[in-house]
């Protein structure tokens, strides 16, 4: 199960934070700080997995953005690594060539996309097309 998802830039600014477990605000800030510290200086040759307390963080870096997912210790790391990539593909599709700016200004839309992709800590929809269609339908409402 996914515990939380973070999008952070290299300076540690949170671009998106979604928690699937109940946490206090102070705890969330601490987590964000610690996760950033864990991933930011890792050698690119190293594994994309870091043990984090009793869980593990799977992260992937796209330009200056780190996408980190905290999952259970028994979960298949590569699957989550790929689901991060799938998420980025979806974002790319939705924003047509996504850039960090899109995510900064449209963070509420990114949350909506994420809600279509992951629900209750599990991947709920793995078809890019289905998600894009759903988002297009919502866009039409505006």
């Amino acid at each position, binding site marked *: 199960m996914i515990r939380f998802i973070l999008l952070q830039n290299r300076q540690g600014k949170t671009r998106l934070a979604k928690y699937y477990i109940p946490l206090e*605000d102070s705890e969330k800030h601490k987590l964000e700080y610690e996760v950033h510290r864990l991933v930011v200086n890792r050698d690119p040759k190293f594994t994309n997995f870091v043990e984090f307390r009793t869980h593990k963080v799977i992260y992937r870096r796209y330009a200056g953005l780190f996408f980190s997912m905290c999952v259970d210790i028994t979960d298949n790391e590569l699957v989550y690594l790929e689901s991060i990539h799938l998420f980025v593909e979806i974002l790319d599709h939705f924003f047509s060539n996504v850039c960090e700016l899109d995510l900064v200004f449209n963070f509420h839309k990114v949350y909506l996309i994420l809600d279509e992709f992951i629900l209750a800590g599990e991947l709920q929809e793995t078809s890019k*097309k289905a998600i894009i269609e759903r988002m297009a339908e919502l866009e039409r409402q505006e």
Partner: protein
Amino acid sequence: MEQLKNIGRELAIGSQGSSKEFLELVKAIGEAKSKAEEERLVMEEIEMLKKKIVEPDVPRKRMKEYIVRLVYVEMLGHDASFGYIQAVKMTHDDNLLLKRTGYLAVTLFLNEDHDLIILIINTIQKDLRSDNYLVCCAALTAVCKLINEETIPAVLPQVVELLGHQKEAVRKKAVMALHRFHQRSPATVADVISKLSMKIMHDVDPSVMSACLCVLFDLISADANSYRHLTNSYVCILKQVVEHRLPKQYNYHNAPAPFIQIKLLKILALLGTGDKGASNNMYNVLGDVLKKAEPSGNIGNALIYECISTITAIHPNSKLLESAAAQTSRFLKSESHNLKYMGIDALGRIIKINPDFAEEHQLAVIDCLEDPDDTLKRKTLELLYKMTKSSNVEVIVDRMICYMKTLTDSHYKTDIASRCIELAERFAPSNQWFIQTMNQVFEHAGDLVPPKVAHDLMRLIAEGAGEEDEDADSELRSSAVESYLQILVEPKLPSLLLQVICWVLGEYGTADGTHSAAYIIERLCDVAEAHPGDDVVKVKGYAISAITKVCSFEIAAGKKVHLIPECQAFIDELSASHSTDLQQRAYELQALFAFDSSVVGAVLPFDGSADDIEVDQSLPFLNHYVKSMLSKGAKPYIPANERQAATTLASQHVESYVSSHSLRFDPYEKPQMPIMALTPVTTLQSDDQSIDISQKATQVFQPSFDADTPSSEATRLRLEGVQRKWGRPSYNNNSASSSAGAERSTNGASNGLDIEKASGGKQGIVPQEPKYVSDRNKQPEISAEKQKLAASLFGGVTSKADSSVRSSGRSQKQASTNRHVGTAKRMQTVDPVDSRAQASLPAATAPPDLLDFGEEEVAIAASSKDPMKDLEGLFDNTGSVPSSQPTAPVTNLPNIDLMSLYDSDLGLGSGLVSSIRVPDMIPENLPNNDSGDRLTVLDGLVTTSGAVAGPKVQGETSASSAIKKGPSLESSLEKHARSRQVGVTPTGPHPDLFKDLLK
């Protein structure tokens, strides 16, 4: 040009409905040069929002933006709780967009037990009944986050109803909501789920089915037996998925619905565990998945890894295991750290079934152990922990302690310290080693070790190897005293270790006469001075007690004690201490000087800690009093438990008696290779005849006690630590001990044959030894150090090297075997030359030889000495090899340049004007061209640094295709382009894939 593009983008974003102010704010924060400036901007924003949102008649569209801004403020780490109520209000809105924004905000702001939730429940209930399916979806998303155990019943009926909704998106979310409910409170939804799981399972929509798998996975992990009948359905679904029978849109990088496949594989692993029939049904489809997964991409490897997990979890199938092993080898040999990591994990799974498999990969494992990547190192240590046996415990624990020293994180430190202790307790080859190891653990992680470990250690030092061998005991104590005197030089010792040190010095500091009482007392005084801190009272207490003991032993021995000035000062200080405990101890010490030797000897006898204090619980000295009271008419006393239920108590009594004295059925620890210099026969002979002779040997040479020895009640007080050697088996002990047992009894006369043991497993997947040799030929640059390490860890490679040592040991062992066991044993003794063949007999055929205890100690001597030496000889022919340590990580030049450029852009100056397109978003972990061949291929979004230039989606694909390998960025881009042309037109209804399951 670039700038123009960015301006265009900004304009586009600006037109999307956010107000100029907000865009300005986001921009300003992005450009903020310092944390303080950012803080100031956000505080201003908060003040502004506080005023605005309470204004009357805020247009709703405006309010929506305020709420988005609240989310933004909260995301930056500030408190926006003043606006939560507005977000809650917004969920009540009729407009779908506003409602969605409201729901989004509350799911981000509130936890499931927040007070405001109660205000939303009603809205959620209403929305779940809405005709607009988008409203239902929004409400269901909120349900997944906001509903807790108490509120489940309020929405459950509606959610269940939505399981039959015509839109698959609603059904899917309803299933996920049920999944969430089940996690929160299984009891509340158990009925619903068990009724519905079959129905939704066969939904025509793959997404709904996939969501359902989440629920089923939870159900099956809780109780696999009730779902075994479904095995065939899952196998069938998996088969269809693998055969590309799901719609194309579920493909990911050409793999058919890999995320669904993985969920199914996880479920199959649960269903097949310990169920031969179910496993049989899976073999075919597992083979298919393995075959069809493309090893060139991350997702293919994810599938392969999951297959390995499943194959190793279910009833074993040799053919599948073989392919699993082959894939694991591929992982381990890969350049990619990610794959190596997966390989190490897979290896850990495979050796549970076939312990010999590790041997082939020992060098890969050692590479990983020495890798600078912490994650990989830790994973490897975990693997070693699983592989630990008595022959390699010293090397492994040593490695762990080395690693522990480098750690600063207390969580991991605690973890690894407890593992060290566990391994040391379970496999310790000698008490000496055990004490040394414990000292190291205490020294480096003292505050994180449970106090019980310290008590066990003290008890071990006090009681040593038992009454049978006082010499060994006192030697142990002397060596402990020496080691502690050395440790005391170090600054900043944890108080737990100080406790042990003080106690040992107090009890045994002067025992062997090497150190004078004055010297010990001086050191003890230093202890108290050198360690000020929170625990200073405790530490002083330890020290003064120890000094008291040293003094009293001196007095009891009739010597005069001259207190050195420091000590006198110390005592004086404590006599005036604020702590009454310290005061009392100081006065007690002073009082002792007044008594003569006989009194002191009685008060504090030497080695008193090892004496059992016998307490006669029947309190006979009160008999007289009791009798007189009874005669005066008092009621006789009935113990509390007897008063309650006399009968049940009696039966319990019997049971507990039986359990503590009955036979133990758990396997003994694996016997070790025995060699040479055997037991001093004298001890054996001089002892009580009633005890079986082999058992006697155990007591003499084993640092442990068998609780079942009929010797005395006192066994209760003996050291648990070492006793655990006979306790529950280690992680892989089942197989290890049984195969070792087989070896022992089939070739009872063979000695030090770790290699045979290792290479002669039940059904060795790969012929190890030839393989190893060829490996070695291929890579002559492997350093001798690593080889040594490998040998001592895996114990395997050494065997052939030193047959002479072995055979000489063997003859001795043969003699000892004969002495220890009777003729029956000798019948099994075989010609040493045959031992290899013997060892490869199926392990299960022979039970472990329980009687043959005696060789334990000797075996260790051999194992600690053998592998290194042997190996040196073995590798002479490779010449002197340069030690090839893992090379320093190669820097990734072009990417890094870009990064820094990008950063300076973003952080300062033009800030948000820089834009980065996804094609540029190259995962940073890509290797550069020179270093990785396979790695490049394996890393999902495959591109090389050539792509840094930022190819546009269309057109430029051919330019970089020259350097791509495998499914790549280009292909995904092409896909994008294609799907963009196609647009987002919905496809027709999905094929009724799972219809056949319904019959």
